[in-house]
């Protein structure tokens, strides 16, 4: 197991290096100079030039890249050129918000997808199957942030059940924090359930056709056991890979939902730092998200044999 994990991590290095390269140069191509942005429109040319030098932006770009990457390998992602905060701490604190929302939502979405997908496959071409597929197609058609806005409008503005916007960190009061997370989690869960359900349904259909399912039934096992012990493990394996990909994508990609619900998450941080040309934070975030993406996919692959022993850790 360990050998396989290290091999996979070694293979991921070229990808991560490429990500670092793309981020570093892409951000510098964006017009607008960080020093200028920070000092605002009234600042004098000398002040801008001075800050420019202080941020080390006057050195040739390759030199900046090497020094940044060298320090990043030792874990020091530098400090935000706007707030001076260490980038590492900034990312972790903002990641806490995103992680809670993404993990809980994807777990719920997976659970719903398993149940709905299995039932639909079990009763293929029946009314239930049609309903499940219809619902999945409908969910896939709704923009996630519009869904968020509607939920906000319904529960926040009209029914006043839930706070409209804002965020209370867990440290201050867990109970209040949960109130703020209900709507974002619901939005993300709904928007991710569609894809997972379709995937679970189609892989369950494949498995239901195979002989060992009929064999299990021929042993006299009740349908419940046949589905749970024989169909589910084999059908869940491909869906789990998709769950891994979704997790990887969402950790960096729910900036839109974070904007709707004003959550200070990682996505929001990335969008703001790109717009504010805060190079160190942008670089740190994207490297963090890329590393997370690789890690999540590795974990999923390590869990894979749990469901499909044929896939040995070659």
């Amino acid at each position, binding site marked *: 197991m360990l050998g396989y994990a290290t091999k996979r991590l070694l293979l991921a290095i*070229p*990808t*991560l290096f*490429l*990500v670092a390269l*793309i981020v570093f140069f*892409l*951000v510098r*191509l*964006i*017009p607008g100079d960080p020093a200028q942005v920070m000092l605002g429109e009234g600042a004098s040319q000398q002040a801008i030039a001075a800050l420019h030098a202080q941020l080390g932006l006057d050195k040739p770009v390759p030199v900046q890249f090497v020094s940044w990457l060298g320090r990043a390998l030792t874990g020091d992602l530098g400090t935000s050129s706007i707030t001076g905060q260490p980038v590492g701490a900034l990312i972790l604190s903002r990641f806490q918000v995103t992680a809670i929302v993404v993990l809980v939502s994807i777990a719920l979405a997976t659970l719903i997808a398993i149940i709905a997908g299995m039932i639909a496959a079990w009763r*293929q*071409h029946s009314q239930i*199957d*049609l309903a499940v*597929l219809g619902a999945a*197609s*409908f969910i*896939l*058609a*709704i*923009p*996630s*942030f*519009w869904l968020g*806005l*509607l939920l*906000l*409008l319904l529960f926040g*503005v009209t029914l006043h059940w839930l706070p409209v916007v804002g965020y209370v960190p867990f440290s201050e009061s867990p109970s209040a924090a949960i109130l703020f997370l209900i709507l974002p989690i619901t939005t993300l869960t709904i928007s991710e359930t569609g894809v997972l359900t379709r995937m679970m349904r*189609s892989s369950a*259909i*494949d498995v239901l056709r195979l002989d060992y399912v009929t064999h299990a039934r021929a042993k006299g096992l009740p349908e419940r056991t046949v589905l749970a012990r024989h169909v589910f493990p084999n059908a869940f394996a491909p869906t789990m890979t998709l769950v891994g990909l979704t997790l*990887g*994508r969402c*950790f*960096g*990609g729910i*900036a*839109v939902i974070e*904007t*709707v619900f004003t959550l200070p998450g990682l*996505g929001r941080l*990335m*969008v703001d730092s*790109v*717009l504010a040309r805060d190079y160190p934070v942008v670089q740190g975030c*994207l490297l963090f*998200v*890329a590393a997370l*993406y*690789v890690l999540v996919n590795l974990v999923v692959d390590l869990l894979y044999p749990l469901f499909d022993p044929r896939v040995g850790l070659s």
Partner: protein
Amino acid sequence: MRARIHLVLGFGLVGLLVSVILVSFVWLPYDPLAIDLDHTLAPPSLMHWFGTDEFGRDVASRAMLGARISSFIALQTVVITIVAGTLFGLIAGFLRGWTERLVMTVSDALLAFPGILLALALIAVIGQSRHSIVIALGIAYLPSVIRVVRAATLSIREREFIEASRASGDGALYTMWRHVLPNVLPPVLILATSLFGWVVLSESALSFLGVGVPAPIPTWGNMLSSARPYMASASWLSIAPGLCIVATLLGINMLGDALRDRLDPREAN
């Protein structure tokens, strides 16, 4: 039986979209760009079916023009991504070796980027315009096309008629073009329908983050995001574009399902 319902619903909704676009070339209830500062934020009425926005512009006309712009952007992006993705996926899946490692490393690197962030950065570099949106989203979705095409190529590559073609002396390029490509098209076609949906959603997300198609050209995305501050006071502003997106995407998804039923043997019982 199910396939038929999906087909009917799908064609119905897509047909509605296409007819709205065709009509928008000829006639629009009002000039979508004309502002009327005396009738801002008017609720839906006989005069204005979907009411007016914060500048007094007619929301219905803007939704119709938006349909044309959003669909064209999505179409252009899908075509570019499918063509480029198929090319790279085919080469990676068929030639294997270092070409496959190169293509897959680059595509994994792009995939590790959150799609919206990559698009945001690219647009900031190229500048905001319809073409920059198409290029940015094209690059953002390229890896997923490459992934699908490579997987399909790998499975086709093992089929005996490929070995027969190589055995009868066909070159690699000829075999790829004549035998592999036609068999990769079904999964690619199915992917194209969902890709269309993803692009429309991404354009609206980008508009929401302030970098979508620039004003005053309406797309469903930027109409939806500019409706956000008036959620409470003028909720119809966000209903109209939202419904258009859902109706269109539902239609496209249904068509995708029907296509999948016809092309993918697994579904047929």
